[in-house]
């Protein structure tokens, strides 16, 4: 029973990890917490839904198109909304991202209404391995999430783009002096964010039903995960997401399940009190 719950929590954590990485990347480079991450996730799920259920394309292809589509969408959103506000305060950008969230979520509602939708993917019965129920979608989720994490790791560590990204995140002024085009880096960052978030949207849509509030339901947890890991640190975001997934699910063994969402809140509150910089974050000294 406990092993099963831990496994479930682990899978939930995997879904959360992708948008948490996206959130933490945005924070690292643009220095603002992007509240629109939930609505972007919803948008990704609906884009895939259009391809899959309306255009009757296979789910994998639909997911790929959704990833490209969402990447393009967020690059455009950045161009129209965030780039004019680039030099403004964190809070201005944060409130602007709330506006973006409104627009994206309600565009989905405008087009598809409030009813729950699902992808045209057959539900496959679960397998039993060593007394654990593992279902096909969980394997897909884990594989996709791991592939996403690995890709981000490779990009950040082993490509010129990744090095430039880290340089911009660490010290924008120095990066500028070294001739790194910040706007180009920001564009690529949004592309990565779009792809990761769309993947998460498809996974979340497979896991439950697609509705306009799909992403919003994840927002608090995704933020909690990114903060838990120390905002700006992708590895921390993954750890934070997995920790939260497991803690939330196992908490249902001791507390009423309807208080599950509170657990992540208390987790961050306590962690922030003890370690304001997050699990893996470093102390930021104000100069």
């Amino acid at each position, binding site marked *: 029973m406990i092993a099963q719950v831990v496994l479930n929590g682990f899978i939930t954590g995997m879904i959360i990890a992708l948008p948490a990485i996206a959130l933490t990347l945005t924070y690292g480079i643009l220095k603002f917490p992007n509240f629109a991450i939930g609505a972007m996730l919803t948008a990704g799920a609906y884009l895939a839904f259009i391809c899959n259920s309306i255009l009757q394309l296979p789910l994998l292809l639909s997911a790929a198109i959704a990833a490209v589509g969402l990447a393009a969408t967020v690059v455009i959103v950045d161009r129209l909304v965030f780039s004019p506000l680039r030099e403004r305060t964190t809070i201005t950008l944060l409130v602007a991202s709330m506006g973006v969230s409104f627009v994206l979520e309600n565009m989905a509602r405008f087009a598809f209404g409030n009813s729950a939708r699902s992808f045209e993917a057959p539900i496959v019965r679960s397998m039993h391995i060593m007394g654990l*129920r593992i279902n096909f979608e969980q394997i897909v989720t884990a594989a996709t999430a791991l592939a996403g994490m690995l890709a981000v790791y490779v990009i950040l560590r082993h490509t010129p783009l990744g090095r430039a990204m880290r340089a911009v995140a660490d010290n924008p002024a120095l990066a500028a002096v070294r001739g790194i085009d910040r706007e180009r880096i920001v564009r690529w960052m949004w592309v990565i964010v779009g792809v990761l978030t769309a993947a998460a949207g498809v996974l979340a849509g497979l896991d439950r039903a697609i509705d306009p509030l799909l992403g919003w339901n994840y927002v608090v947890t995704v933020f909690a995960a990114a903060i838990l890991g120390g905002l700006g640190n992708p590895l921390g975001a993954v750890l934070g997401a997995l920790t939260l997934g497991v803690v939330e699910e196992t908490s*249902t063994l001791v507390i009423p399940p*309807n208080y599950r969402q509170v657990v992540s809140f208390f987790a961050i509150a306590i962690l922030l009190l003890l370690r304001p910089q997050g699990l893996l974050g470093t102390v930021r000294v104000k100069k």
Partner: protein
Amino acid sequence: MKCHNRIDLRPSRRAVLSGAATAGAALLAAPFIARAQAAEIPIGVLLPFTGSQGAYGPDMRKAAEITTKLINDAGGILGGRSFKLFFEDDESSPTAGLAATKKLLEIHKCQAVIGIWGSPIAMAIKNVLIQANTCMMVSGAANAITDGDTKGLVWRYQAKATDWGPGMAKAMLSRGWKRVSILAQQNPFVIPMIEPAKKVFEAAGGQVVDSVVYNPDQPSYRAEVQRIFGASNPPEAVMCLGLLTDFVSIVREVVRNGYKSKVMALSIAADAEGKFIQAVGPDVAEGIEHFQPSPPLGSPTYARFQKLMGADENALFLFAGNTHDQVCTLALAMEKTKSTDSPVFTKAIREVCNPPGEVVGDVVEALKKVRAGSKIAFAGAGSDCDFDERGDQLNRHFGHFRIEKGKQVLVQVIKGPEGTL
């Protein structure tokens, strides 16, 4: 010494303000341009179109519109006056519902406000309507709606929440399920069902193994499903009391994990005017049973209503039929009393609905009979339309269905509590 940027701002600030004011004024003035004709009887219809309950509004709107057209096309009531409907969105929020109600009362001078789906919204606007001496017809189940002194203005076109639970328990017992668990959404019309249902199970020698209440709008319901369905000694069946979106997630989780317990849900989730099967597909939905206060299945009124709504004979309209009945009873009671005044015509609602009298389902025919002075007992498309003195419905039918090959199959009809008429 003056600050420069302050001076520069002034013209544009004024422009912004006056622009906003003009826009506001234009919006506020709009209804007077499009004012209803005096001969029309304005009726307010308050329904959820957005927010968490947004999925349930559109069908009720359609039902109200076609019923009104039926009456108006047949010459209307009170010697040629017709109904004019004003729809408002309650946004699934009591505060927005209240503002909308005020608009219906004050701007459109509505003689009655009908529809009213969510119980919290009904609770929030009840006092306003009673104070304004305006008839209120609700589709919400919470018992508290008809509590207190309603001056005979509040009418419920739905079974009381406390009547649902025992009916559902009886339906499950009739299928031979005695060891059951309950999985319920935290929701005002679901929660009151739980305790009465438990009592019925226990009285029949059954056992409620476990019950879990979950919050709406969670990212996943895995933990809840795991606890109820994945218990070491799983129940024979699970009573799933939720709404569409969460039920879709729950069923997917159940099917995917291959849990064996049977699922008994509310039709509002497992049918939802066909949206459930549309969302999960017929394979996943196969074998799920559901239960709800149902329309009088097989009655000519309901068959005609299905046709009017453009649906086939399998379509199950849970709320749209009630809205149809609300419009019809309004028309009949007004015709009977020759009055559009709520305190007057509401006195006649029981008279045109309850037996004794000739059972009539067609509203146009019923109106003719009322004009001719004969005693009728209107039977609607949502229910038989019999009311007790509190305004609650009596003799409600509860339908028990099973989903087979993507279709609703009626298992049985269970009668709700009968009252003294």
